[in-house]
């Protein structure tokens, strides 16, 4: 069963401001313990949470045929089904 990083580090004695390096399963890991003056993880600006507005207009449909239209009236709208109001009964 896997454990989370928080669970794994919970039993490790870590000193503030220290940098630790170790090898785990063939990979080198570096761990730095922040001081209180440094940015706290909870206050970090996470760019992946930011929604963006489109920065370009996609092309309108390039191909097609052009025809002459004619002026007219709109077709009748789809009338929504309105439930009877009990107060009006």
């Amino acid at each position: 069963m896997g454990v989370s990083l928080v669970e794994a580090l919970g039993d490790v004695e870590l000193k503030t401001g220290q940098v630790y390096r170790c090898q785990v399963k063939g990979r080198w890991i570096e761990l730095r313990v922040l001081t209180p003056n440094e940015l706290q993880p909870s206050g970090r600006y996470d760019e992946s949470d930011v929604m963006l507005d489109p920065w370009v207009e996609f092309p309108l449909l390039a191909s097609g045929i052009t025809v002459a239209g004619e002026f007219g009236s709109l077709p009748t709208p789809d009338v929504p089904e309105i439930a009877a109001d009990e107060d009006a009964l």
Partner: protein
Amino acid sequence: MIYGFPGKNDPIDQADIVETCPVLTLTEFDLERVEPPQIKVSSCRVIVLTQTCDLANGKVSTVTVAVVHDAHALVEQGFLKLADIRGPIRSGRVFGWYFLPSRREFGLSEMIVDLRQLHSIRLDLLTALCQREQRLGRLLSPDREHLAKHFADTFSRIGLPEPYETES
């Protein structure tokens, strides 16, 4: 499974992807109404946005659709970078654009739904296109609802003139 593949006689539903749908663009308009308006008719891929309940209850005669672009064509034309697609667009972080993954075995390339290019299409026309096997597939739940939520968010968001200031 992200996509389903309804039969050609199945009714239109939200998130159906339909090929060769004619959409109209008004290209010239004489305000004096002396000359007739010029209308371009283009054949394109669209996705249905009208709510399933409205379609199922037969309450609508027209359907709201959004134009669907081939993602890599947009890259080739210089509108987007591949990193844009792999990053913020794929993760749904750009209002108005919705990424659809490829399923090459079904002829579906990576696509981007442009929720800012909307059209109203007659339901009977879309139905006829489906009967001619122009329906490429249908986005299934929960992806369909995810698209619908992104559509709603795009048009319900309220932007502030300036971001709020902080003290530090």
